[in-house]
């Protein structure tokens, strides 16, 4: 039975209505009530030591106060408990010119914007069937009382217009606090780009990110982020890239072999991965700037699972160059190799503390079935995090507090449960289960906002890539073609 512990998960903070809330639980609420101002800065900001100490005290208090059954209930019921989500209406944008291309581009834009806001997990999307009749393309069209009264009962309204002129498209968008008719405008933006569906999708992502940033208390939007992954087709496995919402899937490598474990650098310029060549598994490097492979030293043995440090200067990876797979550090050019572990058995799948860069979590089979461990980046202070079962594929959260990983808790013939994703608070080793008996779930990776997780799951019948909120809700399938595994979310 797991407890979900208090943390700095995103606050919902609205600059006008002064909304404030936590996504996850009442215990956090309690802690929020006694919280210090720094906590309101959102998950991306590093708390002071003073605030950290406060956090741990509050965590302890939370554990003592929360009954297990209650904790389970909270997790299962998701993000809404104890927190009122912002009710947001997103009106279809209105054409502002007579161009024939408007219809297709408007559909792309409206769908993308709606999905981005829905995926954010901080909104209650008001169904379009409740909207007042008539399109609104400009502030003058907004009739506040029709939006604030039942049935829409919206707090926020997104509207705007889109028009193609010649080869370019212009989009104007607004975010209105419709409950504050005196000073309703929270956001007003204008975008201009080529009249293509790709460009329109990017405009929608940018606008969605602005809205999420304003209404989410400063949390970064992820609509412009990328996901790298492995697609298996025709006996080969290649590295692919897609937008965070599954759109724009395209192949990066054409090696005709087996390439695995893509891991993008913090600045997004390079993708490290492991590939099978004639002599064995080597670390390879793909430049997203040059759109080709760039050289990287080859080490003897089996070289697997490269992971970038948060400052982008180093890589951790697994190498059996000594005859046994161990964790090594190397700088971004592949020089200054340094060994961190020395224990018989597999050591693989490192992940850096994304906040501090001072610790690494990884998987070791030194005691038999694989377990998750952490250590400092000089190899000392090794701590075992999981106590049983088969635990693999750790991913360290952007705020530095959590590990998400794949765990078969009860291992053995006939044992209940399968490979599910779990979230663990590193300081206390308390954990909570995120997926529940829906196929095999593996290779989680955090979104830059620290609130979403992308992972591979067999729940649809084949291995595909899914994303969900970090509490396990809002699961959404991103790939359908071929077999797709080992997703890695970009850092921004």
């Amino acid at each position, binding site marked *: 039975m797991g407890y979900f512990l208090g943390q700095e998960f995103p606050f919902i903070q609205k600059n006008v209505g002064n909304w404030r809330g936590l996504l996850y639980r009442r215990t956090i609420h309690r802690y929020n009530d006694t919280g210090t101002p720094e906590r309101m800065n959102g998950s991306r900001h590093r708390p002071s030591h003073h605030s950290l100490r406060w956090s741990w005290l509050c965590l302890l208090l939370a554990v003592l106060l929360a009954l297990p059954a209650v904790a389970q209930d909270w997790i299962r019921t998701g993000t809404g408990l104890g927190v009122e989500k912002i009710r947001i209406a997103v009106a279809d944008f209105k054409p502002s010119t007579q161009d024939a291309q408007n219809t297709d581009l408007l559909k792309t834009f409206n769908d993308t914007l709606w999905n981005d806001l829905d995926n954010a997990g901080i909104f209650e999307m008001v169904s379009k069937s409740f909207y007042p009749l008539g399109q609104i393309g400009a502030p003058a069209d907004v009739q506040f009382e029709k939006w604030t009264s039942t049935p829409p009962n919206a707090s926020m309204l997104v509207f705007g217009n889109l028009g193609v002129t010649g080869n370019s498209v212009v989009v104007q968008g607004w975010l209105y606090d419709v409950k504050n008719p005196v000073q309703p405008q929270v956001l007003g933006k204008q975008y201009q780009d080529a009249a293509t569906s790709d460009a329109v999708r990017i405009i929608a992502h940018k606008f969605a990110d602005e809205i999420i940033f304003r209404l989410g208390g400063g949390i970064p939007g992820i609509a412009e982020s990328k996901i790298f992954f492995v697609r298996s087709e025709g006996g080969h496995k290649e590295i692919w890239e897609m937008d965070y919402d599954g759109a724009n899937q395209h192949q990066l490598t054409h090696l005709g072999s087996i390439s695995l474990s893509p891991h993008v650098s913090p600045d997004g310029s390079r993708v490290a991965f492991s590939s099978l060549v004639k002599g*064995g598994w080597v670390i390879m490097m793909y430049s997203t700037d040059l759109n080709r492979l760039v050289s990287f030293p080859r080490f003897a043995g089996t070289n697997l699972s490269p992971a970038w440090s948060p400052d982008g200067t180093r890589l951790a990876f697994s190498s059996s160059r000594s*005859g046994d797979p161990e964790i090594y550090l190397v700088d971004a050019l592949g020089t200054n190799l340094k060994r961190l572990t020395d224990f018989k058995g597999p050591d693989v799948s490192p992940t850096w503390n994304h906040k501090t860069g001072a610790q690494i979590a990884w998987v070791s089979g030194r005691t038999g079935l694989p377990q998750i461990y952490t250590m400092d980046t000089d190899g000392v202070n090794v701590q075992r995090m999981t106590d049983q079962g088969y635990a693999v594929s750790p991913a360290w959260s952007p705020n530095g507090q959590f590990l998400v990983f794949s765990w078969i808790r009860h291992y053995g013939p006939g044992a209940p449960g399968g490979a599910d994703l779990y979230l663990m608070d590193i300081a206390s080793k308390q954990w909570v289960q995120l997926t529940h008996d829906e196929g095999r779930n593996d290779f989680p990776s955090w979104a830059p906002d620290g609130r979403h997780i992308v992972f591979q799951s067999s729940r649809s019948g084949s291995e595909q890539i899914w994303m969900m909120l970090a509490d396990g809700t809002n699961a959404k399938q991103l790939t359908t073609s071929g077999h797709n*595994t080992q997703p890695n979310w970009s850092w921004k």
Partner: protein
Amino acid sequence: VKQPTLKWFMLVFALGAIMILGACHKKAAPPPPPPPPPPPAAPTASLSASPDTVEKGQPITLSWQTTNATDVSIEGIGAVQTSGSQQVTPSDSTTYTLTAKGPGGTQDATARVTVTSPPPPPPPAASPTEEELFSQNVKDIYFDYDNAAIRADQQAAMQSDIDFLKEHSGIKFTIEGHCDERGSTEYNLALGDNRANAVKNALVQGGVSADRIKTISYGKEKPFCTESNEQCWQQNRRGHFVYQQ
């Protein structure tokens, strides 16, 4: 009265005719000639070769029988008994001719022996190559789940591999580490590396030179068997030997 008279007349006439005809036949037959003197008996001869087809270098048996002969010879062999047998080894196809002479004349008998070339020398493939010997003799090593230790029931195979590889010290080879489908891709690749190296270490300890051995892990990327049951999983949990040179 008239009837009997006719009958008698006819009977007399018939008898008279028979007598006349018979007297004429006797007059035509010539006197028999004197019998000729009996000629001396001519010789007979038979010759056989057994078998009548042989590979070059193989012997055959010639057998012969004669009658009424006083002087018997076989061409190429010389005078022989009037009947008997003899082994000969013809180098080429030969027709043996036996001549039997006697007071009654001369009689020949022949026997033909076909000599075939021996079959072409066995092609080099017939003697197994090192690669064939390698695949016939070297046994893969199987592992327990999530384990890279050489288990007890694999020690015999391990020892036999060591013996063979020491005997054929020119062979270079790769050991592939394989895993079953369960568990995670990255962890299985590391585990497969452990398995390949476990087999390599056992060979080296047994006296096989390490510089003949390469290792590679395939994790669960290249399974031998793709069903989801223990029998199939066991097939995939192995150190697999591959001949290199």
